[in-house]
């Protein structure tokens, strides 16, 4: 750094530097990512800017500590409280934080405990005595396991009992969603292509005294695309969306498996971003946190409105690098569908591929009669059922083929005819 700091602007007793360090600690407690490096920077910056005006002092600290627009509100709050009386903030924090902290830990512990208990007690709980005599039960159970798993694969999520659901969830956690990598404009050394890497060729020529013996070649580098999941959690979809979110959690947390980033949103009457919650390792904790934030579980549906909110606030931020969108909804919209048609068209135009999962498709005689379905169908690239584990497996196979349309073409023919 340049040696021009008027370091003497800071009083010698170090009170201000001390206070800035305290302030940084308060910010960290409030959730801003503030490390010691930034505190040092802040002291330097304040020394450089001087502080004749409270406003300048504020903006100086903001320039150092804030690095996202969302953090500005928190910063303003903490600043207002802290520079009035530091002890007041400590007091407030001591009142609030243990509670908040406690609740979070509690929650995580609960979910983890539940899983731990399940894991420990699995198969050890004695079966209810009134069922069958214990002697021949073992044999029956042993033969039934395989077929039970088979049956579970094709069973409708809606018709599952509690124990079947938990078994299905374990199967879902093992599912993956393979994906084809995208070509980028960057290139890397390769031996099999026709593109010549002039820079490496000439460097190689240096070794042989300027004679180009072999031509070095290069090929485009590939990268993984992003996945954006939009999941309907309204009343008509509740059973499916819970299961599908288990699936999404499994996909989002599988490392090194494909998808660069997985963004997830839920919608019923309004749109909620649950990406952050899905990062929790424990699936129960993740879904609980997501459920706490999405206030509209099992309510009505306003697909058009929700997609509008997504297009306006999020599409430009998450659909940028050739993202694939997975839309999970039954398409039963209560509102006027002109808005829905317009928004789904925009969504389709701004993503690389739009895949629609609709649990209604499991009925063999399904025809696109509802207004909402008629509005969405022309704008999706692929249309598939999502009502059972088998159908989600099929999705995994289909998604890696770029020309897969699922049931779309058949239904479009129905729509026209």
């Amino acid at each position, binding site marked *: *750094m*340049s040696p*021009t700091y008027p370091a003497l602007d800071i009083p010698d007793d170090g009170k201000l530097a001390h206070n800035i360090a305290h302030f940084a600690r308060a910010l960290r407690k409030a959730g801003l*990512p503030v490390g010691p*490096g*930034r505190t040092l920077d802040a002291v*330097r*910056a304040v020394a*450089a*800017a*001087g502080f004749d005006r409270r*406003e*300048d002092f504020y*903006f*100086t600290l*903001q*320039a*150092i500590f*804030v*690095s*996202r*627009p969302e953090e*500005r509100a928190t910063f303003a709050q903490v600043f207002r409280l802290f520079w009035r009386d530091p002890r007041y903030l400590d007091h407030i924090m001591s009142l609030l934080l243990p509670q908040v902290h406690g609740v979070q830990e509690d929650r995580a512990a609960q979910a983890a405990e539940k899983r731990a208990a399940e894991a420990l007690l699995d198969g050890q709980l004695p079966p209810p005595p009134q069922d069958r005599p214990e002697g021949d039960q073992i044999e029956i159970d042993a033969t039934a396991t395989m077929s039970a798993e088979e049956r579970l694969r094709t069973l409708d999520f809606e018709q599952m009992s509690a124990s079947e659901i938990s078994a299905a969830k374990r199967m879902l956690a093992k599912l993956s969603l393979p994906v084809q990598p995208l070509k*980028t*404009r*960057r290139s890397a050394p390769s031996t099999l292509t026709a593109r010549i890497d*002039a*820079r490496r060729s*000439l*460097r190689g*020529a*240096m070794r042989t*005294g*300027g004679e180009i013996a072999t031509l070095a070649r290069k090929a485009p580098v590939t*990268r993984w695309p992003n996945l954006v999941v939009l999941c309907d959690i309204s009343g008509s979809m509740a059973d499916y969306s819970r299961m599908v979110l288990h699936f999404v959690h499994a996909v989002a947390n599988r490392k090194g498996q494909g998808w660069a980033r997985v963004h997830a949103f839920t919608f019923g009457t309004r749109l909620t971003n649950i990406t952050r919650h899905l990062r929790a390792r424990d699936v129960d904790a993740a879904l609980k946190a997501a459920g706490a934030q999405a206030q509209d579980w099992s309510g009505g549906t306003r697909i058009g409105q929700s997609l509008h909110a997504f*297009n*306006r606030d999020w599409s*430009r*931020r*998450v659909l*940028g*690098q050739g993202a694939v969108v997975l839309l999970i909804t039954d398409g039963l919209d209560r509102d006027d569908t002109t808005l829905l048609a*317009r928004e789904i068209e*925009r969504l389709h135009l701004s993503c690389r591929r739009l895949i629609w999962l609709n649990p209604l498709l499991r009925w063999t005689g399904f025809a696109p009669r509802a207004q909402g379905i008629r509005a969405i169908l022309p704008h999706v690239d692929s249309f598939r059922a999502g009502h059972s584990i088998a159908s989600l497996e099929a999705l995994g196979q289909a998604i890696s083929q770029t020309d897969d349309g699922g049931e779309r073409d058949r239904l479009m023919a129905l729509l026209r005819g």
Partner: protein
Amino acid sequence: MTALPTSIDAVETLLSGQGYVASRALATVVFLSLKLGRPLFLEGEAGTGKTEIAKTLATALGRRLIRLQCYEGLDAASAVAEWNFAAQMIAIRAAEATDRDHLKAELFTEDYLIARPLLEAMRPQPGGAPVLLIDEIDRTDEPFEAFLLEALSDFQVTIPELGTIRAPEPPIVILTSNRTREVHDALKRRCLYHWVDYPSFDRELEILHARAPEAQETLSREIVAFVQKLRREDLFKRPGVAETIDWAKCLLALDVIALSPEVISDTLGAILKYQDDIQKLQGSEAKRLLDEVKRELVPA
């Protein structure tokens, strides 16, 4: 070469001398960035004057402006330097006749190097250290961001065949992002961060006076009030300050002295860039907003 400003007020004066009306918050970060020699990271909606600040600073300080426009797949060869292969091949042919021993020493020297923006910015310039504008960083990918870390924290670039080139005097670096994706924290941490917001009514009016001084006072007020109203509407892309200025210039070119629903409908293309938004605003909606604007402006 102009000396660097010594206070926040001096930055404000310097920028306004070039017709750039900066908020106090922006003036503060610009001052800090100049004083501490740290890169300045500007994020915000399109058309809020992020790129403009770099141009203005370069003119005001009499420095050279070097611009690196980012795009997907931008790599070191097009950002830092590329070798002049054709010239190198000719040199090899020429050396075949004479001596091959010196070839190795000569082929990878600065003579055969084509400097691209980053290397250019590290070299000494006649007017003092240049202003380096790295525009729309969100368009590149993460590998390039990682590459920028070295350039921005130590002000040096490494060319494998030549070695590390260090800037004798660090350039003034300004990065802009439209936030189409999140830029990595490691890069942000090395910079001073500022979110460029839409200006308030008074400030936007000031900007319009500076940029389109030929507009009448009443027309300017109407334009700014209308655009401010428009930003509160539910639009896919809200108009930026650049659009306000463009629109004012369009209206001046058409010799308009006061806004009317018809004029607005005809010139909507200057402020709204999406068909859906334009359709929403055409006809009665524009009239309603204009009526509101006129009602509010009467007491002023």
